[in-house]
């Protein structure tokens, strides 16, 4: 691994591909072509899924959606450098559509999440992905716990936790990063700096010269990487992972990108964002950038693109159809609160089931069940 994280300054942005994807400006990551092509396909899929969840929300079929448009390379690139058999990923809420490397179950589960189904939090074992987190930054200490656990067990994994520039202002981030530094735990703190936290721009979020610079507070390296450059993401995350699993401790990675869409389907960026700002990022599309590079190397083409889009659409349709077909008992909110319900919950559930005209015995039903 040629990239030295200790030397990578928190002020410069690490990049492999030129902005238009036409040239290499740094050594590409040491991965097989197939894997890079897989990242490309994953990004395409995320983009297609993004449009799909957006319109499902507009049709009233799915819940509020937080688009990933523009940030696909951050997630797909990082995931490509991780080992799904050993590493944990802890998403915030924007990432799941690009986490296919951790298994096709991720998208299927996420479809349930968007549907408002309780099983939407259940990425099934052995998929090493934590449920979506709404309480910003709260998953960061969990990542430390997972990493600490892996170290205690002598397992060669890392915990890679995604969080936004906004979330970086929460105490949970700082407390976890500080403790991680003390433990030297294998955590990758992946700060997705997409320029905004809803309507709050960077300069209202921090006066630090960069998010990566915050690593100085914890005694481990911080690097800035071009989040719209999938190859750069792979390089940096791979280097940080290598460092972590060999006992070198955590790394703070700031992926510099831009949220090309609204915050969520409920948000209107016109209220707070100058159109020029978004326009300035249009030429830096991460998918286009990698596509140019791969096409230049004969690894991608218009046909491959069409094929990838069709495959993506099919996968998403299947996931969504499955989600829509999955029913749930209306009293399923009593499931999985505890391993065994409290006596009071038993009474409450019986009362509700009676009211709904259901069999008094809920059985051993789970939220994923198919009705009473």
């Amino acid at each position, binding site marked *: 691994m040629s990239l030295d994280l200790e030397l990578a300054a928190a002020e410069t942005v690490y990049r492999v591909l030129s902005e238009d994807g036409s040239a290499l400006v740094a050594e590409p990551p040491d991965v097989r072509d197939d894997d890079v092509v897989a990242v490309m396909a994953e990004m395409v899929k995320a983009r297609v899924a993004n449009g799909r969840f957006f319109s499902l929300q507009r049709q009233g079929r799915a819940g509020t959606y937080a688009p990933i448009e523009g940030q696909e390379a951050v997630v797909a690139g990082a995931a490509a450098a991780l080992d799904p058999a050993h590493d944990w990923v802890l998403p915030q809420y924007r990432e799941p559509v690009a986490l296919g490397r951790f298994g096709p179950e991720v998208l299927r589960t996420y479809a349930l999440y968007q549907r408002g*189904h309780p099983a939407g939090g259940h990425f099934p074992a052995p998929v090493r992905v934590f449920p979506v987190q709404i*309480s910003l930054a709260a998953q960061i200490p969990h990542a430390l716990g997972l990493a600490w656990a892996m170290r205690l067990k002598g397992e060669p994994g890392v915990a890679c936790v995604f969080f936004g520039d906004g979330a970086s202002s929460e105490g949970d981030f700082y407390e976890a990063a500080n403790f991680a530094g003390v433990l030297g735990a294998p955590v990758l703190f992946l700060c997705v700096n997409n320029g905004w936290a809803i*309507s709050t721009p960077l300069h*209202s979020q921090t006066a630090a010269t960069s998010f990566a610079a915050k690593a100085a507070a914890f005694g481990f390296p911080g690097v800035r990487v071009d989040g719209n450059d999938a190859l750069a993401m792979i390089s940096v995350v791979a280097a940080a992972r290598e460092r972590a699993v060999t006992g070198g401790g955590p790394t703070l990675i700031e992926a510099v990108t831009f949220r090309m869409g609204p915050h969520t389907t409920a*948000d209107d960026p016109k209220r707070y964002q100058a159109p020029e700002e978004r326009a300035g990022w249009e030429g830096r599309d991460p998918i286009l950038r990698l596509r140019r590079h791969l096409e230049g190397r004969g690894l991608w083409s218009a046909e491959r693109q069409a094929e990838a889009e069709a495959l993506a659409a099919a996968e998403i349709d299947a996931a969504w159809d499955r989600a829509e077909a999955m029913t*749930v008992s209306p009293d399923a909110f009593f499931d999985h609160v505890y391993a065994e319900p409290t006596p009071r919950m038993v009474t409450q559930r019986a009362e509700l089931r009676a009211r709904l005209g259901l069999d008094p015995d809920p059985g051993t039903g789970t939220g994923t069940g198919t009705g009473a």
Partner: protein
Amino acid sequence: MTLVEAINHTLHQEMERDGKVLVFGQDVARNGGVFRATDGLLDRFGGRRVVDTPLAEGVIIGTAVGLAAEGFVPVPEIQFLGFAWQAFHQIAGQLARLRYRSDGRFGCPVTVRAPFGGGVRTPELHSEALEAQFVQCPGLKVVLPASAADAKGLLASAIRDPDPVMFLEPLKGYRLVKDDVPEGEHLVPLGKANAVRTGDDVTLIAWSAQVEVARKAAAVLAAEHGVSAGVLDLRTLVPLDIEAIVAAVEHTGRAVVVSEAPQSAGFAAEVVATICEEAFYSLEAPVARVGGYDVPYPVGMLEEHYVPDAARVVAAALRVCGEGA
């Protein structure tokens, strides 16, 4: 005017009235708040008095404490009440106690605004009814308007109150609740419940969004069951209008308490206990609780039967009226 418009209007009036009033929080300035509660304040009062903060609830409340000690009147917003947990140590241990800790030297005239409540299929932690947790923090007042007019009158009173107030707004009612709001000065005192409807057979006691549910239930009880139900909107849980509760229960001899929070140790328990202490001998039947269940607020597909609805309140009222008769 809708309830959220009443909030917005009142914030304008109070900022106009008192130059010490400051509004800050996440997305309150440029964006005017994710529900537009603070819309227009930045343009009108400028970036010194209306401020977008970093994304950190603890320091939003913590700075309010310091600003208050220096004579300002902060009205911070917590975007959703579930994220007040991030600031719980500052709310319970600091905001609520500056007066006590300083033995009266510093007051803390801070009004923390936050929406909560279910029924609108929000993501996790946007709907939780946490009012009882704040009642368990002596030093705080806890205020929950149910109508647009009350939102104005109570918010103005809260902002002018010398003590910290948790001002909890019904998310579902932001646009659904719509009623006449007096244009000029309008103050509703903290600590006075509102007899929304009088009745002779049973008293329905509620606050926030559940007042509307109780109202609907009362209408059904009257129309379909010949039961005369009064509805008492508590408006403020601290201070609690014990007198009004006792008077209503003494009149009807029966009561149902309606709330969204999980049952165990929710504020409804306090209402029942208060009634049992103060009006026991007037009771002709046990007081019933209709509320959320002892589970976390559920995901969208499961919301329907979690939040109390009129039918549940009607059933409970009929049960209460059928007992001990």
